């Protein structure tokens, strides 16, 4: 009893924490790519986390960078000639290091976790910068792809074949069991 109550409270509270994956689910490696970070004269683009481990990436065209909803990955536009982004972060809270630079939250809608049997291992959202100036960055989502462990796109039927197969087997087995039961009852 001494352990039961804290365990039950823990089970009710902990799943809402972003650190925990729901039972039966696995984490998806989240990636974002930007098509045109070099299209704006006098600017370069970085992606940086606001919280947690420092992760600053200079964004290259079409090259995926890690995205974390938990650590608040944000896209910043920095004037060319600005010191190396890692140096900006040194010893200061992440957000403060980039204060004053135009920024935007990436419009990402990809899944952060999937069922454990899913072939999906990574999710890649491709974005396009519509506008980059002192007033801010305009980002538009171009596409979202789910990828398997080998980096290949996951076809829709690979997502559904296992659950639908299990569903069909379960339904068939239950029908058979009901029939058997009726036969036993009448016989």
């Amino acid at each position: 009893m001494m352990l039961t109550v804290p365990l039950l409270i823990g089970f009710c509270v902990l799943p809402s924490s972003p650190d925990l994956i729901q039972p039966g689910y696995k984490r998806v490696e989240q990636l974002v790519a930007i098509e045109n970070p070099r299209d704006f004269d006098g600017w370069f683009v970085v992606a940086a986390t606001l919280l947690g481990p420092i992760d600053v990436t200079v964004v290259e065209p079409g090259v995926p960078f890690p995205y974390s909803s938990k650590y608040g990955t944000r896209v910043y536009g920095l004037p060319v000639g600005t010191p190396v982004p890692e140096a900006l972060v040194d010893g200061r809270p992440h957000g403060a290091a980039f204060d004053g630079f135009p920024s935007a939250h990436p419009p990402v809608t990809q899944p952060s976790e999937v069922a454990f049997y899913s072939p999906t291992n990574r999710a890649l959202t491709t974005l396009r910068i519509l506008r980059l100036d002192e007033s801010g960055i305009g980002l538009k989502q171009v596409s979202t792809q789910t990828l398997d462990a080998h980096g290949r796109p996951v076809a829709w039927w690979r997502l559904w074949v296992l659950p639908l197969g299990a569903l069909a087997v379960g339904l068939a087995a239950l029908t058979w069991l009901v029939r058997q039961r009726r036969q036993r009852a009448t016989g």
Partner: protein
Amino acid sequence: MEVTAAACWPRSARPEDLLWTVASVNLLTHPIAYLFASPLGFWPTEAGVVVSEAFLYRGVAGMGWKASGVLALATNGCTLVLSFLL
């Protein structure tokens, strides 16, 4: 896991094909639960699974309401606790 948990159900009160029923019911409910887990959230989905399984245990194995409810709650409770611990 739920079949193993159901195997602990008292033999005297256990329908003949209970373990097969539990296995089949889980094959049916789990894919549907994964479908609803994202939009509904974990706990409402888990509650829906328990209620659905109780109905199916009653309908297929012919158990009473109380017994099928307790069985659904117990089997899902076991797997839930184990999934968090493991």
